């Protein structure tokens, strides 16, 4: 009997050790270890525990995901500073821990063998990572270009990365500073790094951009780099107040700058997720926070301007749905809008939802309206496959409609909804394979106003079948 008891205790002990290892190594049941599937039949891969953010505060959970055709897998970067390569089946090929930084931006080399990953950290490093092995080929610290002041929590980050056909990387390095008088200040610089890791140029050379630089793009056809700048409040002494700066791709020489005049009640024109060149370099699409969509020519002249979401005064408050993305594609010019916001303070409630919020718009190159597809949550990110657009649908801070979260696939041509894969938490990032058959997104955990935590920080991998959604991988 005693022997029996002893063996039972040993068995329990062994099981407990296994359970502890399971918990301690991040394989907790709620994170869905290898092999777990979501409601749509997609693969679930845990990306570890991260702080759960409030549902009503948007944009704090970062994640990057890219499809790597050469590897037939997914490159995923996390808030925890970890970079993974997963197979289509969700098996981890490698994991590269990049340390204390938060990975915020990524781009692939034209050959698809190198990933350029940017982080937000006290150094704000830009890494060139071999996607096959996970080895770091070279790295640059943004702090060397825009400084760093950890005592003020003013961490530099590589906010956006673009790559040209030669493999030269163009990265926007930026940090936000709080001045002694309480005013906001910015320090930004674009750096161009050749494929071999040598620094090609930096813009500006002898100073930093004193406004914020969210986005950039490069085009081989017209040999130009464009970056957009903005600020919450422009001051007299600021030098970089224009909206777009065009640089020569080869040496970073400034070619021209374009100032886009704001509309009432806004004082500035702010670009968040644009501009982007068309593949042939003839067009440039951009969407503004004030709800306008623009199509420029390759040199920066406005071809046309469309109002996606007109700021409207309702019950004494200005409300509108911010524009964010702008793409000039073969099918047309695509713009997106996000949640409805109160002009006074984006955290204040709004009496109604703007009818153009959370939408994807397509216009033809002649400026004629194609369609509007209204999702019920924020279009957090767009990814394009053959004839389709995949949208990561995140929060709706006004309606708290959690059923809208997930991956939405539309046919670009006519905006027809092809698939929708629901996720419990908001989907923050998305990527799609060029053929449109493979889809992946990163879900974030959020704390709802009711005090419930929904979702988890995890990767979903779906395989799209022509027949419809939910086909198991």
């Amino acid at each position, binding site marked *: 009997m005693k022997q029996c008891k*002893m063996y039972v*205790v*040993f068995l*329990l*002990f062994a099981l*407990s*050790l296994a359970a*502890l*290892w399971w*918990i*301690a*190594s*991040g394989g*907790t*049941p*709620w994170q869905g270890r290898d092999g777990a599937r979501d409601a749509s039949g997609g693969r679930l891969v845990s990306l570890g*525990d991260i*702080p*759960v953010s409030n549902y009503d505060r948007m944009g704090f959970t970062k994640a990057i995901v890219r499809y790597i055709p050469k590897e037939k897998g997914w490159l995923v970067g996390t808030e925890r*500073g970890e970079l993974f390569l997963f197979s289509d089946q969700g098996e981890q090929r490698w994991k590269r*821990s*990049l*340390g*204390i930084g938060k990975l915020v931006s990524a781009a692939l080399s034209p050959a698809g063998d190198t990933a350029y990953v940017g982080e937000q950290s*006290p*150094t704000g490093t830009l890494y060139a990572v071999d996607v096959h092995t996970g080895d770091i080929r070279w790295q640059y*610290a943004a*702090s060397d270009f825009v400084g*760093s002041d*950890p*005592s*003020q*929590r003013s961490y530099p980050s590589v906010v956006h990365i673009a790559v040209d056909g030669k493999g030269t990387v163009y990265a926007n390095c930026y940090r936000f500073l709080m001045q002694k008088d309480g005013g906001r200040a910015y320090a930004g610089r674009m750096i161009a790094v050749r494929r071999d890791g040598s620094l090609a140029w930096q813009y500006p050379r002898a100073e930093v951009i004193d406004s914020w630089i969210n986005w950039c793009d490069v085009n081989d056809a017209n040999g130009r780099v464009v970056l957009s700048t903005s600020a919450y409040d422009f001051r007299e002494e600021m030098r970089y107040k224009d909206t777009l700066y065009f640089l020569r791709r080869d040496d970073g020489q400034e070619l021209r700058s374009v100032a886009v005049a704001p509309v009432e009640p806004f004082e500035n024109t702010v670009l968040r997720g644009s501009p982007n060149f068309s593949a042939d370099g003839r067009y440039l699409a951009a969407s503004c926070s004030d709800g306008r969509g623009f199509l420029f020519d390759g040199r920066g002249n406005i071809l046309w301007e469309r109002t996606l979401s007109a700021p409207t005064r309702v019950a004494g408050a200005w409300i509108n749905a911010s524009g964010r993305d702008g793409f000039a594609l073969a099918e047309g010019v695509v713009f997106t809008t996000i949640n409805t916001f109160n002009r006074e303070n984006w955290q204040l409630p709004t009496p109604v939802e703007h009818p153009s919020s959370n939408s994807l718009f397509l216009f033809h190159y002649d400026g004629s309206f194609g369609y509007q597809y209204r999702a019920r949550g924020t279009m957090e990110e767009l990814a394009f496959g053959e004839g389709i657009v995949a949208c990561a649908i995140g929060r709706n801070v006004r309606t708290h409609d959690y059923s809208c979260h997930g991956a939405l696939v539309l046919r670009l041509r006519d905006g027809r909804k092809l698939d929708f894969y629901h996720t419990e938490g908001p989907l923050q990032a998305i990527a799609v394979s060029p053929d449109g058959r493979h889809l992946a997104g990163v879900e974030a*955990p959020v*704390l709802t106003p009711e005090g*419930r*935590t929904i979702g988890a920080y995890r990767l979903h991998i779906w395989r799209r079948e022509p027949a419809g959604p939910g086909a198991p991988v």
Partner: protein
Amino acid sequence: MSMRQLWEGNDSAPWIRHVTGETKLLVLLSYSVWTLAIDNPETLFYLFAGTLGLHLVARTSRSKWYVLAILLLLGLWGSMFSQALFYTQTPRTPVLVLIRPDMPVLGRLTEGLFVYREGILYGAVQGLRSAGMLSLGLLVCWTSDPRQLLQALLRWRLPAQIAFMLVTAIRFLPVLAAEAGEVLLVLQLRSGSRRGRRAVLRHLPYVIQPLLTRCLRRAQTLALSVTSRGFFLARGQRKQAPLPRSERILCLACLAVTGGVVVSKILYVLSEQGFYWGAFRQIYDGAKLYL
């Protein structure tokens, strides 16, 4: 194996019995610093697993494994359950509802009882800390002669009286364990009811007094015994053989790792507070990933 034998140890592998008290205490102290400094659950798990590995190579007997397993199971699951249920920090995510807040009476009284996933992890971390310490502490107890430890403490220039008190505490572990069992049995025997004859938990509060009294008496006798054998008189006369080379290396390695862990952790915490130096980036990364 009697309770007393269980707590005394000369059935372990000879090599570990011959390791000097200084080395054992230094490893134990270093380990305690590591477990306190490290927050990473995975690293803590491996440290804990390392102590179990040491038990294996020290050939800890099956009966002792049995006791170790029971103590560890109680500690680990106790910590995890309590934290899973009563975790108060935010965010906290319920993974299981034990009592719904809208349940009549109980729900209103407790405002709901949930198992929180963050609590489970937090409890596991705390449990691993104490389990590792317990496991290594028992290994030292089970493989050390009290004299060994006494000599180590004296070598560290601890006053003889304090060293003696510390070691007496260890020396009395087996006695305490044996007598606690006896007192518990006596409590059962003195119970007037059939239930009391089998109860354990309800008798526990009464175990302490007789046990303590006995221990004080025993400690007094032991003190008299070692005093009359010249322990306090001959402090300066004891021979102090140098540590074997292998142990010196081990001690230095432990000190180096401890120093490394503490410095890395301090640097990392400072960096979180804004005191960041770019040259230490790898240390920060290492601290974040593994500590």
